[in-house]
């Protein structure tokens, strides 16, 4: 999420300073007023902590890793203004010393991660935590959700900053001068990548971090609280809810939200949820399709689990399941399902983003429309479950293709060995490689 130099025009990146610099000024005033001279070592050390937390790789399901920012965690413990300074200082050091993020872009980066993130995170935390006792599990969950929202909003801000570049700064021939993606591309790219990846990690880490503090060092959550956020209820015993209750409540809430959104989109008519005409659905067909889908799932998922190598077992089985249940969307009538082509988008939004029009020419895949071009699957009077099977087959082929391509690229990159090495003199300083002694041990 660190924007390097060259992505933003200097007018934007320096102009954002108009928001960042006053925030820094107010932050240092506030923090000084609350914590006095004690502030300086406290802030310096928490900035160092924030830097160290940004270095931590966290294991993510599926075998990859991600790293967190920790801004919300610091905001919860020290208050949002102190978090502004701690994260900003860490970002400045990253930019000036480690070349992570641009120097001119420092205002933009500090605004996104150093100002927006702690404030949004802290506001959501206060909202969700309400007046719950300080050591309740509700506060830990609220912290996790708050961190998720905070970092996602910060990613959205990055998407907007990058997305306005081609609109504002292109020359006469339409050549983009800075980041070339407009809002239609930059915002979804940033939002999706974070909402389903880094944000989850950040939320999880913040949740676990607050839970750890509640259990082991409750004093840190209580001692400063009265200073910067008076009026919040104090202490209280730790209480926790059984896991199934949390899960059930979340599921219920998700269904309720979906229903509400569907009602809004359907204009308040329960028969037209999500704007689709549900009376057109042939429910007998749907029943057959569900049955076929269930049978295929029962066969495919265990098969994937057994057939795949151990590393890929879980993730592979999960992908197989997703491919299998994907065609359930075919039930919805009147609206093309999935990432429809430009025609569907045009129908839905009334215009085609120009870029998509060119792109669709490039990527019109052989299995276009996500089904197999045989009469059995896509004929005019093929029944619903035929279409569903075609859908599942193309889904699995697609997943295999993507996996193959990614694997091939990974092999190529690894084989290429294009990693810059240290010159001789610095090699002597190299610390003993920590992993050598214990190879193969550990996670």
């Amino acid at each position: 999420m660190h924007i390097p130099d060259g992505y933003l025009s200097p007018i934007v990146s320096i102009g954002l300073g108009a928001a960042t610099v006053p925030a820094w000024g107010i932050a240092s005033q506030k923090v000084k007023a609350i914590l006095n001279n004690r502030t300086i070592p406290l802030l310096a050390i928490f900035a160092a902590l924030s830097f160290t937390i940004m270095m931590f790789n966290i294991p993510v399901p599926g075998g990859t890793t991600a790293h967190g920012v920790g801004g919300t965690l610091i905001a919860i413990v020290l208050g949002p203004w102190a978090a502004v300074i701690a994260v900003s200082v860490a970002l400045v050091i990253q930019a000036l010393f480690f070349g992570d993020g641009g120097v001119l872009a420092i205002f933009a980066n500090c605004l996104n991660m150093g100002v927006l993130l702690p404030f949004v995170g802290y506001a959501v935390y206060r909202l969700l935590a309400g007046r719950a006792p300080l050591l309740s599990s509700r506060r830990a969950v609220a912290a996790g959700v708050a961190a998720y929202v905070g970092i996602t909003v910060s990613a959205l801000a990055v998407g907007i900053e990058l997305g306005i570049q081609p609109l504002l700064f292109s020359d006469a021939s339409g050549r983009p001068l800075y980041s070339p993606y407009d809002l239609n591309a930059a915002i979804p790219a940033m939002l999706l990548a974070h909402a389903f990846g880094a944000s989850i990690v950040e939320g999880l880490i913040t949740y676990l971090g607050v839970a750890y503090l509640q259990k082991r060092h409750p004093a840190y959550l209580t001692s400063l609280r009265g200073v910067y956020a008076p009026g919040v209820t104090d202490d209280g015993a730790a209480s926790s809810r059984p896991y199934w209750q949390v899960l059930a409540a979340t599921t219920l809430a998700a269904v309720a939200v979906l229903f509400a959104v569907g009602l809004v989109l359907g204009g308040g008519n329960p028969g037209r949820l999500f704007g689709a005409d549900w009376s057109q659905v042939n429910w007998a067909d749907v029943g057959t399709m569900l049955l076929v889908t269930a049978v295929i799932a029962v066969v495919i998922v265990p098969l994937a689990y057994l057939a795949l190598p151990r590393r890929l077992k879980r993730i592979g089985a999960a992908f197989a399941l997703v491919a299998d249940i994907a065609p359930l969307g075919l039930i919805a009538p009147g609206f093309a399902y999935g990432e429809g082509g430009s025609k569907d988008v045009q129908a839905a939004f009334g215009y085609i983003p120009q870029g998509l029009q060119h792109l669709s020419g490039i990527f019109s895949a052989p299995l276009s429309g996500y089904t197999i071009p045989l009469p059995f699957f896509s004929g005019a009077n093929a029944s619903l479950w035929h279409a569903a099977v075609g859908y599942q087959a193309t889904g699995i082929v697609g997943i295999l293709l993507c996996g193959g391509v990614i694997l091939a690229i990974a092999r190529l990159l690894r084989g290429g060995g294009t990693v810059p090495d240290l010159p001789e003199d610095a090699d002597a300083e190299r610390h003993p490689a920590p992993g050598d002694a214990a190879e193969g041990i550990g996670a």
Partner: protein
Amino acid sequence: MTSPAVPAAPDQARVAASPSRSGDRRRDGRVGWLEKTLGGITASIEHAIFTEQHARTDGWLQRRDPRAKLGMFLALVLAASLTASVAVLVGLYALTLGAARASRVPFSFFVKRVWLGIPFFAGIVVIPAIFMVPGPRLFDFAIGSLHLAPSAPGAGGAVLFVARVGVSVSLAVLLVMTTPWADILKSLRSLRVPQVFVLVLSMTYRYIFLFLHTANGILLARKSRVVARTTGGEQRRWISGTMGNLMSRAFKMSNDVYAAMLARGFSGEMRARAFHRMRTADWAALGGVAAIAALAVLGGRTLP
């Protein structure tokens, strides 16, 4: 961050751009999260040592006053981001290479370090844009229903974008590699950055290495003691416990540091020792570079 999305990529670039990679790989060739973190921490420490070493060798840029250097750097970075001409960017890069040569920065390291890092990812990020930007097509290569048709403005924008990112990153690397951190901080003072910030920055920098050292110890201790395969949930609980533990140390440490500062007479005021003097050569270099930057922006308007 995990994803291959637009600006998330530079985060991963740090791994590729770091001066070395610790050779800890698991037997099946994959690098685990623990090894990755250890490698990242080690690389940061190495990077710091390596940079400080080069900042102290005798070269043209090392001899310049840090304030002059910061001024030159800002002028050139501004010029690089204001110009719309690839030719000007190439010229600026040549200037950077010359300065690196004169300052005894290892040449192959400087070139590789820069171009295999962030600009490389900018290049990958920009590829789809070549096809998405509207405008006349360079050529239209059709394979069945597949059309491979890069647009002229898209390709031009991509070249400009990668060149700009590359030059900006080169300039930043050059500044950092020829200036000791303490001098960068002192010259920030002359840019009217409030003293509190400079003090916090310098203390942060010092404690970063303490924390990195501590974290390194914690991770190494785990790595050398755990023999079983552990679950993801256990690993995440452990990591967040480590973070909480570091946080509790941070609290204790800040109290101790404050007490120590009080004991040494700290009253909220910070006093810095007298600074270097700007010499004629420094003024000349600063003026020359500022003139080049202005010329690059104004004169570059007519160039492609």
